[in-house]
């Protein structure tokens, strides 16, 4: 199997692999899935990549990035998996139907949730404040890039509304792109749809250019990651935890209420591991009066992926066994946490589901950091 005349091993520079297995050892799903990054790299070197079409488990990968981050030889197994998915995408077969639908929806509607573009601002309709809209001619210092899931998912819409409250209390001059906002493409790229990702980058850079965007704050670590690392962008992009942490430090955002709870924090992979933003979210949580903060044993770089990334919001994994989010919830309950805070829409959805499936609804809650902040200011 070749990509544009290059073998996998050449394209992904795999010849340095000495098969130490750290990639598979650190993999968030390899314990319960046949997915084995070390074997995939080996097979790619041996040109046994024809087998790609039989590997249903390729879609199990969450693209948390642990394999790539831990490789002592600077090989990127997670990129190999994206490349293998890309082969399936270009062939058009052996792709889970729900992944196809998500991609087709991004192409058609600008979001992977199958929702109409014209409903993208639905989340803001009940707010009693008017939000500046760049397409309507308003100018603002900061573009608040809402993202698809906060725009459409009823649960996550609360996070977008909380964000608006925080901005307004701190007197931040911000605006949104309204129905012109488009999918960022982070998940699209990770589902292997390279062509669609390139198209989104081109379209989005044009939109950001049209409205002279200089500074952007995102709700989701996924959008943040791709804008920061995969767009050749001339604007500054921050995840909201970075932005809020600064506002709190400068005392532009102060708290008036206490939250007397024991809170732990789930590091989103695209914020923590992949972009090394570990401190800001913790600082925000600890700044809230009344909070007792405790960390997971597996935290920061060793944090356990919630399994919501890499397209997994749209496809169930093949392997059997407990979901990582359920393991996370049990661990949190055991160590006495009353709230799992996170800073990612996907983490929030997977963990909240896990609270229900483990039956711990009376013991623990899952909240986004924005929700905690907007409650306490």
């Amino acid at each position, binding site marked *: 199997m070749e990509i544009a005349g290059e073998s996998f091993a050449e394209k992904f520079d795999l010849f340095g692999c000495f098969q130490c297995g750290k990639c598979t050892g650190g993999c968030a799903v390899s314990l319960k899935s046949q997915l084995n990054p070390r074997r995939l790299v080996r097979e790619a070197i041996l040109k046994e990549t024809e087998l790609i079409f039989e590997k249903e488990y390729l879609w199990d990968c969450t693209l948390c990035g642990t394999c790539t981050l831990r490789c002592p030889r600077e090989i990127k197994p997670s990129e190999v998996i994206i490349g293998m998915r890309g082969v399936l995408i270009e*062939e058009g077969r052996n792709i889970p139907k729900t992944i196809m639908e998500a991609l087709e929806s991004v192409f058609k*509607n600008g979001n992977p949730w199958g929702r*109409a573009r014209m409903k993208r601002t639905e989340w803001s309709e009940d707010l009693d404040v008017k939000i500046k809209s760049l397409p309507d001619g308003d100018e603002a210092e900061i573009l608040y890039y809402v993202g698809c899931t906060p725009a459409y998912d009823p649960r996550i819409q609360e996070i977008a509304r909380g964000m608006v409250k925080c901005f307004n209390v701190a007197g931040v001059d911000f605006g949104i792109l309204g129905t012109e906002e488009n999918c960022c493409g982070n998940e699209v790229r990770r589902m292997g749809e390279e062509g669609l990702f390139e198209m989104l980058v081109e379209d989005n850079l044009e939109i950001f250019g049209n409205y002279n965007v200089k500074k952007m704050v995102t709700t989701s670590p996924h959008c943040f990651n791709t804008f920061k690392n995969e767009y050749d962008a001339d604007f500054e992009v921050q995840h909201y935890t970075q932005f809020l942490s600064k506002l709190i430090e400068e005392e532009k955002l102060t708290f008036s209420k206490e939250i007397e709870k024991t809170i732990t924090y789930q590091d989103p992979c695209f914020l923590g591991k992949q972009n090394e933003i570990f401190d800001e979210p913790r600082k925000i949580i600890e700044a809230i009066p009344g909070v007792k903060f405790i960390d997971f044993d597996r935290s920061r770089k060793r944090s356990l992926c919630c399994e919501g990334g890499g397209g997994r919001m749209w496809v169930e994994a093949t392997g059997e066994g407990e979901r990582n989010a359920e393991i996370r919830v049990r661990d949190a309950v055991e160590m006495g946490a009353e709230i799992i805070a996170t800073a990612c829409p996907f983490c929030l959805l997977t963990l909240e589901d896990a609270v229900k499936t483990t039956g711990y609804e009376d013991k623990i809650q899952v909240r986004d950091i924005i929700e905690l902040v907007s409650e306490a200011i």
Partner: protein
Amino acid sequence: MEIVVCIKRVPDTAEAEVTITEDKKDIKKEGLAFEINEWDNYAVEEAVQLKEKFGGNITVVSVGSAESNDIIRRALAMGADRGILLRDEAFDGSDSYAIAKILHGAIKDIKFDLVLTGAQAGDDGCAQVGPTLAELLGIPHATLVTNIEIEDGKAKVRRELEGGLEELLEIELPALFGIQTGINEPRYVSIMGIRKARKKEIVEMGLKDIGLTGDEVGLAGSKTIIEELFIPPVGEGAEIIEGDAAEVSARLAEILKEKGVLA
């Protein structure tokens, strides 16, 4: 095997709010996303699978505006060999009958064994173009086709009937089949695939090229006229449940239990 597939570009109205134009003859198209008619997508996939089995060529034909090139190119990326866009101002306002005449004008000069259409279109839902086109071409047809097997110049096709019944027909080729959804699993069409398909030919044809006159197409050549398009009035007996997701689902579960649907 030479196959012709007729496809149509339609708005996706499943999730969007549909509004009616001032003259009450059409829906407002602004802000709507357009795509290949769902049934036609299955028809293209079926054609590609038949080509993969028996070889030959696939021609996709669409009556529409320049935007219909998008769905033609998508079909080319799926595996069709060439496209024909039938585009002329004179075609505006054509009903199913006039559309069938236009398609016939282009297809009559093509050598084919099989013509596939979607069983119906997602926008007007008439399901008439296929059978009318078959009559104009003078070939047999079957509608709501859920399986095709080709053997010795004949096709064995399964049709979906009401109440879970199925019908098995043997039809001599050339023939026209109206394809029902679910007959296959349409493949994914990647953006790179669509870009590569730009090399394939799309021929544009107008009224003169297909040998018809202005009074045979458009409103003049149609047998049906839209009097008025309207949103159905809200009926009696519907209970709209208010509240957040948890409240709504709790109440819904209650109702389903009351009615004996849930134990």
